[in-house]
């Protein structure tokens, strides 16, 4: 069963700064959904291959050809903060 510590851990992994209230509500909701999902335990999946793709396609590749890069200003146009040609982010402190 998912506990409060798991919820905090998952929020950190998912980079979500959740409030106390959100964490608590999330715990209850996730627990309910996970309980529903438990029904899959009843399925016998021995020897069953996993499906990652609904269509059986393989070996799709592109040739090594250069396409002109996109317009720089258009690519930077959505930047919340920039410095000249760079995207700018607040200082990086290791977790």
């Amino acid at each position, binding site marked *: 069963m998912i506990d409060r510590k798991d919820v905090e851990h998952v929020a950190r992994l998912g980079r*979500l700064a959740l409030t106390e209230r959100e964490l608590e509500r999330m715990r209850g909701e996730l627990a309910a959904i996970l309980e*529903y999902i438990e029904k899959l335990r009843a399925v016998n999946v021995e020897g069953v291959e996993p499906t990652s793709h609904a269509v059986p396609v393989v070996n799709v590749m592109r040739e090594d050809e250069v396409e002109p890069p996109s317009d720089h200003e258009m690519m930077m146009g*959505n930047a919340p903060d920039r410095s000249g040609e760079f995207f700018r982010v607040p200082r990086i402190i290791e977790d």
Partner: protein
Amino acid sequence: MAGDLTRLTVHGLTEAYRGGEETPTRVVEAYLARIARLDGDLGAYLTVTGDTALAEARAAEARYRRHAARGPLDGVPVALKDVLCTVGVRTTCGSRILETFVPPYDATVVTRLRAAGAVLLGKTNMDEFAMGSSTEHSAFKPTRNPWDLARVPGGSSGGSAAAVAADLAAVALGTDTGGSIRQPAAFCGLVGFKPTYGRVSRYGLVAFASSLDQIGPLAKDVRDCALLLGVIAGHDRRDATSLTAPVPDYASALGGGARGLRIGVPREYFNEGVDPDVERSVRAAITVLRDLGATTTEISLPNTDYGIAVYYILAPAEASSNLARYDGVKYGLRVPGRDLIEMSGRTRAAGFGAEVKRRIMLGTYALSAGYYDAYYGRAQKVRTLVRRDFETAFANVDLIVAPTTPNVAFKHGEKEDPLAMYLNDVFTVPGNLAGIPAVSLRCGFSRDGLPIGLQLIGRPLEEATVLRAAYAYEQATPWLDRRPELP
């Protein structure tokens, strides 16, 4: 007069253009006027691109004058779910985190629509990042069902469905990850088609669950649906999962009739959870199909009941990954913080709504160390079983017929519990898990006067068969005569 113009189907419009009775400019003006008048109540659109739409309409008009129309969509006003990237036009996905995002590129489907001469009216409302079944989870506003404003239009393509149902667009594109085209089509009484996975390029569709997402049409009738599908389908070198099989002429194959089709009726889709009005209408539709010369047999899709559980592991897991890029660095919202982790953590907490956060949490959990095999790995295996159910069934039948949803449109705020909302997708999710084509079309009305959806499911890449049966049914029934009462 304007009301009549917006009632025309795609094929009706282009006939009128070719005959010179109407012009794209007049039609687009009528649509823009109707949007201005009604959309305040309906909330179907997030962005209306009036000026460019008129410019595109004038260009289409010039082509008709020169007898150089580009095909069955030239001058046709189209609405796009706001999850499809449009160059220079903001694409929000119904989310605060992308409220200001202006894509530098067009989705492949948008490129194809433009090449076909379609007029882009605007971008429609949706559940945030396509996560939801009611369009109540849009960060900006809810969308209302044109048949009853107190009810939801379904979701997540609720804006596109409401727009077409209310004659605020001739036709629209939606996306379907677990039923997000078919369910709103059912709730709004439209034809909504989810093609085979890979039939339509996903390039430029902002990903929710990559292995399940497909783009498809929402239309007033089956012919319109076929015309739009024909324009957007086909291989795209930018999407490695797109299929290379040639695209048949769906519209010209519509007249083949239902005679000789073997139709399976899955036992599991007629359980006690299905609303009696829905069951009655779907059973009646099966009788109609039989009267049209199809044969019907009861079949079993034994793993149907596991669909939702599989889906609510796979889709959130993929979503947690797809949505990791929204971190306040490159585009969209940024909430300041003392350092990078604080900034991105706050940005995501403020930028995503409750349902999106819930799924990110669920998906992250399902993929995290120690849980992968129990959740994601197992779900992928059960997905194989669901797929095999269909393969087995399709060895003996050409089509499967079922209700699209267990219920008709519900009221705003009626489904507060996330799980109750999820269970609404029980009949649509298996089609996504198996990657097969499926359509929803109107097959009657509930006692409250709300449309009911009939679902036809086909073999991979057999869109034409699905459409043919749908068309035969549509032609044999009177349901399209009824329209929502709007001012």
